[in-house]
């Protein structure tokens, strides 16, 4: 009976221990591994850290947790005299976060030195794109920052989701950090159409082959710019009358006729009794016709030059506004507005 009780107790305790072990979260394993590292229990630390990294799905560590686990694992393996394993852990870390550097207050210089060696031998680029960007006017650009582990040649391209090349943004070496700009236009200069795109960064090895690619999905929506409304035509009330009321024309007629009568009478007035020559009737006729023309002209509404000029200036000003709006609307229709949403970067290929 006692023996059976002992066996039962052992079984229960073992089951409880196994249940407890299963119940540990990756974060708890990570914490346990770090404690073990700090206690210089490197074997336990390595086991706990590897267990923390082994999880997948819901049991997987976050990226920051994986980075933390890998740096401690690398340091642990270093102190276990397993440099290859340490280098492998650091390389995995750099592929996740090429910008990572070990804290020199936590890790001794020899660990940092090994990390540095691994970093210089690893070709990877981290991509930082704003989650939301808008290109609304000429000069606006999407700015993507690239962070390289070490200096190496890279290609940065914009592609359609099906892999068709839209535009090559950069080809050349990348060292520490590099901003890459995109104005939202394809290689031909036309604005990108709405759809799914990919910002792809290819890292090339010393032999020129692509050794690693990072893709950032871009969702582009083209929003046609709102066009401006036409400026309203000047109200009729703003225009001044261009013609005054017509006169009677009598004054013009009298002036012409008075001059004509004077021509008829002049020979008698100047040379009394003289009948005068018939030539003067040409002048009389001209004056009479002029008087009649003046009579007709003055009866018509008379133009007011100042008002005509003011109205012309008003119309020209309105026309200038119309032309300006037409130009602006044409530009807005041609350019539109791009809204670019960037997703999480994905690593397409690893060495």
């Amino acid at each position, binding site marked *: 009976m006692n023996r059976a009780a002992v066996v039962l107790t052992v079984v229960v305790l073992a089951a409880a221990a196994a249940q407890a072990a299963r119940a540990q979260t990756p974060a708890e394993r990570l914490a346990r591994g770090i404690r073990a590292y700090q206690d210089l229990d490197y074997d336990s630390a390595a086991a706990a850290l590897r267990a923390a990294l082994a999880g997948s799905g819901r049991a997987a560590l976050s990226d920051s947790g994986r980075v933390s686990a890998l740096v401690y694992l690398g340091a642990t393996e270093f102190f276990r005299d397993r440099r290859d394993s340490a280098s492998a852990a650091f390389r995995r870390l750099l592929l996740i976060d090429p910008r990572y550097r070990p804290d020199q207050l936590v890790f001794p210089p020899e660990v940092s030195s090994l990390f540095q060696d691994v970093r210089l031998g690893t070709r990877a680029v981290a991509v930082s794109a704003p989650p939301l960007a808008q290109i609304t006017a000429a000069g606006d650009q999407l700015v993507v920052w690239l962070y390289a582990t070490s200096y190496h040649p890279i290609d940065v391209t914009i592609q359609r989701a099906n892999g068709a090349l839209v535009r090559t943004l950069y080809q050349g070496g990348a060292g520490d950090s590099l901003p890459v700009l995109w104005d939202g236009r394809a290689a031909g200069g036309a604005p990108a159409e709405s759809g799914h795109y990919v910002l792809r960064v290819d890292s090339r090895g010393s032999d020129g082959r692509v050794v690693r690619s990072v893709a950032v999905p871009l969702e582009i929506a083209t929003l046609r710019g709102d066009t401006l409304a036409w400026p309203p035509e000047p109200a009729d009330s703003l225009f001044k009358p261009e013609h005054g009321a017509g006169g009677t024309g009598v004054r013009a007629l009298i002036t012409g006729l008075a001059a004509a009568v004077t*021509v008829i009478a002049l020979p008698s007035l100047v040379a009394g009794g003289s009948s005068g020559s018939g030539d003067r009737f040409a002048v009389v006729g001209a004056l009479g016709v*002029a008087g009649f023309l*003046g009579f007709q002209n003055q009866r018509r509404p008379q133009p007011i030059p100042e008002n005509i000029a003011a109205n012309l200036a008003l119309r020209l000003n309105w026309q200038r506004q119309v032309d300006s709006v037409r130009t602006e609307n044409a530009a807005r229709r041609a350019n539109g507005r791009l809204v670019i949403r960037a997703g999480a970067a994905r690593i397409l290929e690893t060495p």
Partner: protein
Amino acid sequence: MTARIAALLLACTLPAGPLRAQVLQHLSLDAGVFRLHFRSAASGVGETLSGLAAVGRARFFVGSVSLETSYSQGHLVADTGTAIARDMVDGSAFLAVRPLSWLALKAGPHLRAYVAPGSTERWVMWEAHAHVDGSIIPGMLDANVEGWMAVGSAVNVDPGARGARGGQAGLILRLWRSPLWARLTYVVDQAKLKNDARTETVEAVLFAVGLGGR
């Protein structure tokens, strides 16, 4: 004088511009043709001649004051068979004041000579003129009437000059937005010798084309 001629040439040859506009604001030139009728009557005996004369006139404006000079010369032939053909030369220089926009007063010497074979008749008259302008179509058609009389006169023919008077009326047509204009004028004047020994009447119809002025 040289300066005026230079200004005139400048006004005629330079393309339209501020300088030409400024010159033409102070200067006016016109030239044309007279058709003349000359009648002389003495003691019931008269002679009638007629002919053509060329006329040129220049006016220089400074404010409301202007100086006007004119010269004409022509040849008269007898309308009746007995009169002797002669040349007529006429010149004047008037100082004009325009107290109102429609009224100008002028005064100055007026010289006239009839040159016939063997004799020349010379008249010197100091004249006072009143000139009235009237607009028919503003800026385009103007009518004008002018009357004058000699306040002093002399002639180299016995028994000497008694006096003279005259008048004219006409029309000025201005081209729209142009310094060019044309005028058609009827002119008549009569000079008398003392004791009514003789009267000489000159009638003319003038057509001239001008440039500049106001």
